[in-house]
């Protein structure tokens, strides 16, 4: 069973690229949200295995969304990776606020899934594994 990821980013193209990369290269199941608010709702409903959260967003920005996720008991345990342009990131500060790690934009779409696994301590699952898993079931 492939792990599921929730990608929260206000930029449509980035969402699409991230989704394509994580699905086709990483073999994950990916759902997307276009705003912090929507992301909170989806996180609550779908309970993904991890969340990738953009830092700079209008309305409810990344930090506030992270705080909210960690405050809500149902979503508090879901690991969150912050996605950010280098300059604003303060890795230590974000980790201190509850993030599992930080990914830098622009990312290499071919490396993104491995980077995610590295941060979360997951074993990188190739498509073959999923197929074989699926075949077993």
């Amino acid at each position, binding site marked *: 069973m492939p792990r599921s990821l929730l990608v929260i980013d206000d930029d449509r*193209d980035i969402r699409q690229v991230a989704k394509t990369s994580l699905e086709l290269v990483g073999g994950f199941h990916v759902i997307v949200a276009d705003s912090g608010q929507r992301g909170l709702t989806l996180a609550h409903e779908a309970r993904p295995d991890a969340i990738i959260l953009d830092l700079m967003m209008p309305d409810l920005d990344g930090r506030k969304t992270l705080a909210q996720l960690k405050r809500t008991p149902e979503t508090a345990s879901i690991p969150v990776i912050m996605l950010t342009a280098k300059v604003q990131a303060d890795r230590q500060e974000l980790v201190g606020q509850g993030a599992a790690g930080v990914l830098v934009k622009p990312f290499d779409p071919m490396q993104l899934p491995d980077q995610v696994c590295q941060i979360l301590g997951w074993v990188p699952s190739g498509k073959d594994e999923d197929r074989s898993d699926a075949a077993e079931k």
Partner: protein
Amino acid sequence: MVMIGRIRLWIIAASVVSLAALSAVSWLSYRNTKELIAANERLARAHKMIEDLAALHVLLDDAETGCRDYALSGRTESLKPYEAALAQLDVTMQVLRRDLAADPNRSRQFQELEPVVNARLETMKELVRARSASGLEAAVRVLQSDRGKKLTDEIRQRISIVQTEERNDLLDRERESRERARTTILGVGVTCLLGIVLLLTASLVIVRLNRQSESDHIALQNAERIQRTILNSAAYSMISTDKTGLILTVNAATEKWLQYRGAELAGSSILRLHDAGELQSRGVQLTRAMGMPVRGDYQALVTKAGYGVADDFECTYVRKDGTRFPVSLSVTALRTGGNDLAGYLMIATDLSEQRAIEKMKDEFVSVVSHELRTPLTSIKGALGLLVGGVTGPLPPKAGEMAQIALSNSDRLSRLVDDILDLQRIESGRITMDKQLCNVAAIMKESSESVGLVAEGEGVTIELSPCTGSINADQQRIVQALVNLLGNAIKFSPRGGRIEFAAERTDRSVVFRVEDNGRGIPKDKLETIFERFQQVDASDAREKGGTGLGLAIVRSIVQQHSGRVWAESELGRGSKFCIQLPLLEPHPLSTE
């Protein structure tokens, strides 16, 4: 001053000459007047003489006439004029004798005249006697003897001579007098003219002196006005203190910025305007730097200035209402003419606006970096997936095009990173987190960062560290060294060797990155550290550089008070060196 001395000399000379001239003229006038008086006296005498002689003449005639009348008529009444004249003659002769006594010539002439006059008087007496005693015929006989007439003629002649001589004398004297008067007038005239000229010159000089003094006064006033304008310049706060840090004067800007009136501040300590904590830290910092104890009070502000060292630093001013604002402070020692310390002058510029602008710049940089990176993420992402074959196989040409697009989007991304990095480092707003860093540790981290890349290019890095520590932001120094190593790897031939070493001098550490690549031409050794400079235009494309790497290295090194330079020989290789101050545990030298 010289001007005044010369003028004074002039005035003294002019006065002396005028005085002399006046004295000369006075003396001349006095003498001439005396001579004039004498001449007048002589004139009177001469006239008297001539008159008296004429009177003598008349008297003698009267006597003669009276005598003859009697001689001829025998009437006693005719004798009266004769007797009257006789009586008068005596007196007149006395007078004449006195008149002519002054002049020896005239005296002689009188002495010659007198017996002749007496003789004539005798003849007249004889005639009278003859008539009265003997009658008419005896008288006629005496008359016919003619003696009387001869005597009379002689008398007349002598009188005439004297009169003529006197008259001539007079004329001569008059002429002489006139000439003398003329020369005197000329002399007086010339002297007066000289006096007038001197007076005019003196006046001119005094007028000029006056004008000079006036223009000096105006110049002084202007200088004072300018000084006051400078002092009250709105752009700087100027505070003067005495040796102990008590405020003496403040300018208008100080009053305005700090919300005090000058009178409120005069006599209070300068510490009233500063942040106590800041001064404490400065005291500690200066103690370490100058190797002597510096208290964290006003000493922290003025010590350096007192030693004649230029002291410019940033600190905080505290307003009357307690609010603060940042200033750039410049402290100078004020000394008297004899070079004694009189106090200090503190000139401050308000940095609030500058800081606000820098904050805006930082925010701008932040926003821009996000804005630029967002589309780049999509571009790089999409192209990466294409090239990675995730969307399916690409026809060869399409693949080539996609690859070109991808590598350039990478380049663009690196460019954005470098520009923003450079901007933040150069603006100095990146507070470098300087700490004690070990040289060897820095070198290890740097070479490990590029380890994979070096391996990929088949280049080996030889590490030769040294002992020692520097006060630095490790991340940034590593960034700089990684940049140099990256360049060295880029330009090294396959199988080449890079020397990465550190050496100690007595006060600093020099990091050295040496390669045997193609080298750098001599005329480019300075310019390569400037922005967007690459030795060869094609490098940018081939080697993937942004042209900003060395500019960033230089900026980082400068922020650490260090030096970076390159040495190279074309075809043999290049050597890049970074020199940084060594951190001694007990600094003894001044900053």
